[in-house]
C-alpha cells in the first residue's frame, strides 16, 4: 500500500517534475529509476534506505556511473514456463542479485 503510493509519486515525478532537474543525475539508472526499481524489488524499509543513500551520493564528490540496485532474496517457487521478463536478477553470490531492467519489457 505504502509502496504503491510511493511508486505513484515517483511515476508522477518522472513524468513532470524531472524537467526541473533534467539531465543532472550522475548515475545509471537515474536516482528516480533506481528508486522505482528498489521499491518494486526490495522490502519497503530497505528501499527507502537505499534510495536515500543513492541521493546523498548523487553529487560531484562521488564518481557516479553504473549503479544497479542490489537485493538479497531467497528464490523459491521457481516455475519453468515462458514469462515476460521485467527484471533480470544477476547473481553476485551470497544470495545477492543485481537488478537489471529488461530494455525490451512491455506491459
Amino acid at each position, binding site marked *: 500500500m505504502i509502496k504503491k503510493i510511493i511508486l505513484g509519486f515517483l511515476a508522477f515525478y518522472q513524468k513532470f517534475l524531472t524537467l526541473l532537474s533534467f539531465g543532472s543525475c550522475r548515475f*545509471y*539508472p537515474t536516482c528516480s529509476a533506481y528508486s522505482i526499481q528498489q521499491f518494486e524489488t526490495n522490502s519497503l524499509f530497505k528501499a527507502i534506505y537505499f534510495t536515500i543513500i543513492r541521493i546523498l551520493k*548523487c553529487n*560531484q564528490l562521488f564518481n*557516479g556511473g*553504473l549503479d544497479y540496485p542490489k537485493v538479497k532474496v531467497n528464490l523459491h517457487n521457481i516455475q519453468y514456463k515462458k514469462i515476460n521478463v521485467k527484471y533480470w536478477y544477476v547473481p553476485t553470490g551470497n544470495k545477492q542479485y543485481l537488478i537489471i*531492467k529488461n530494455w525490451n519489457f512491455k506491459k
Partner: protein
Amino acid sequence: MNKNNNLSKQDSQKRIFIAMILSFVFFIAYDFLYIQPQQAVYDQQQAVASKTTTTGVDNKNQAPQVANSTNTNAAPVTKITQVNEIVSRITTNKNIIEIDSFGRIAQVTLLEEQYIDEDGKQIKLFASNQLRPLEVRFSNRALNEEAFKTNVVASSSSLNTKNGVQTLTLTQKMSNNTLVKTMKFYPDGHYDINVNVTNGAEFFVTPGFRPDVMADMYADHGVVLKMNDGTLTIVEDEDLDKTVNFTGVKFASAFDRYYSTILYNFKTSLAISLMPDNDDSPQVFIHAKDNIDLSGYAGPKNYRDLASLNKELTDAIEYGWFTFIAKPMFLLLQYIHDYVGNWGWTIVLVTILIKLILYPLSYKGMVSMNKLKELSPKIKEIQEKYKNDKQKSGAKMMEFYKKEGVNPMGGCLPILLQIPVFFSIYRVLLNSIELKGAEWAFWITDLAEMDPYFVLPILMGITMYVQQLITPNQMQDELQKKLFQFLPVIFTFFFLWFPAGLTLYWFINNLFTIAQQYYVNTLFAKAKVARHEDHLSHKHNKKD
C-alpha cells in the same frame, strides 16, 4: 506507420498546450474565486468588528470547564452590556497600554515608527469584540457573574515608564472575594503581573485572543504553546472543536502573522486550557488558585525584542513545519543584515554565499568537464550508435564515464538541496516582521510583497531561459523537450505573485549559474579549437 507517428506527435503537442492553458486558467481562477473572496470576507468581518465597538461589547464570558477531583464546574455565562471605559493608560518606550474597567488590557498601540498600517496610522493590536489580555474568569459561576458587574479601581490613571519601571495596582472588590492585580510595566513594553484573589477562589487568566492586524491565509495564525520538554504545540484558528487541557507549559502565545500576545513564566510551569470560541478558534486560559505570577508581552514578533526578554520566547516566531531550517536562515540573514543594512542586498549576499559553499562541488564538476573534452568524439560515437534507444544510450554513456573516471552531471543532491533553501527563504519572508516593508533598491519597496511591476519575475524567466540555452542537454524525448522549453514561462507565471525577495533570490541564483556555465562552456570551446588545430596539424603531417 510514419504518418501515424507524426499524427500522435502533433496530438501530444496539442495536449501539452491545452494542459498548460488549463493550468493557467486554474491558477487565475483560484486567485479570483478563492483567495480574493476570502480576503473580501475577512475585510467585511473587520468592518463589522469595528462597528460593534461603538455599540458596546456583547460577548459570552465563559470560563473553561475544568474537571477537578470533586466536581465539574459549570461554565458561567455573563453578558457585558455596558461600554467599558479606560481606567488607566500606560505609556512605555514602545507602546501605549490601555486598561479598561474590567482590569483587562483593552488595547495596545505600537509607538515605534516602523509599525504603521497602510494608511500610515499606528497599529492597534486587538479587534474590538474579542477576548482581551488579562481578563480573569472564575470557575464559580456566581462569583464570575459578580466580577463582570464590578468595576476595578486603578491606583493611577496615567503612567509613563520614562523614569523607570512603573507599578500599577488594580483592585476589584466583590462581596466575598477581592481580586488584586499588581502590575509592573517596563520601558521595553513588557510587564510582570501578580494576580491575587482572597478566599481561595479558582480562576483563569488569559493572554487574550490573538492580535488581529495581519491574519491572512498566507501564514498561520492561532495559538502556540511551548512545553517544558521544549516542544511546541500549535493550534490554528478554526481548528479547535473542544476544550483541551495542557500542563507543563512555559509560555502561551496567541499570534497572527506578525504580532503576538504572550503570557509566560519560565520558573514555574503553567497549566492551561484551550477553549474554542464561536469560530472554533483557540482561546488560552491559564489555571490559577489564590495567586499567580506571570510576565506578559503584546507586540510584534521581533526576534531581538523577544530574545531580550527571554531567549526561549523567540520560539513564538514560528515558520510552519520548515522552522528547523527557516530559523537558522533568518539568523543568518539577520547577521548579514547587521553589516549591510539593507535586506535586499542581504538576500543577494546570502545567495552568493550559498553558491560559494557549493563551489567545491561545482569546481569538481568543471574539472570533470575539462577531462571530458578529450573524450567527446567517443561520446558522439556512442550517441550515434544508440540514438534510437535512449535507455541503452544512457547506460552505455555511464559505462563509458565510469571507465574514464569522468562525469559531467551535477547530481541530484545539489538540486534537491535547493528546495529547503528556497522554502526557508519563503517562510522567512512571509513570517518575519523584520522583513515586512523591507526595501531593496529601485522599485522594490517591500520584499515580502510581490513585485508591483512584475520586473523581477520577468528577469527571472529570462535568466532561466538563457541558462537553458547555454546548458548542453541531450534530451531525446520530443514531448519532454517541448515542456522543458516552456518551463521558464511557467516559472515566470508562478513567480508573479511570490514575494519579491524570493524572486530576487532565484534571479541572482540563475545569474550565477549562468556565469558558471558560461565559464565551463568557454573552456569547452577552447579545448575544441585546440583539438581541431591538433587534428589539422596531424593531417598536415600525414600528407607530408
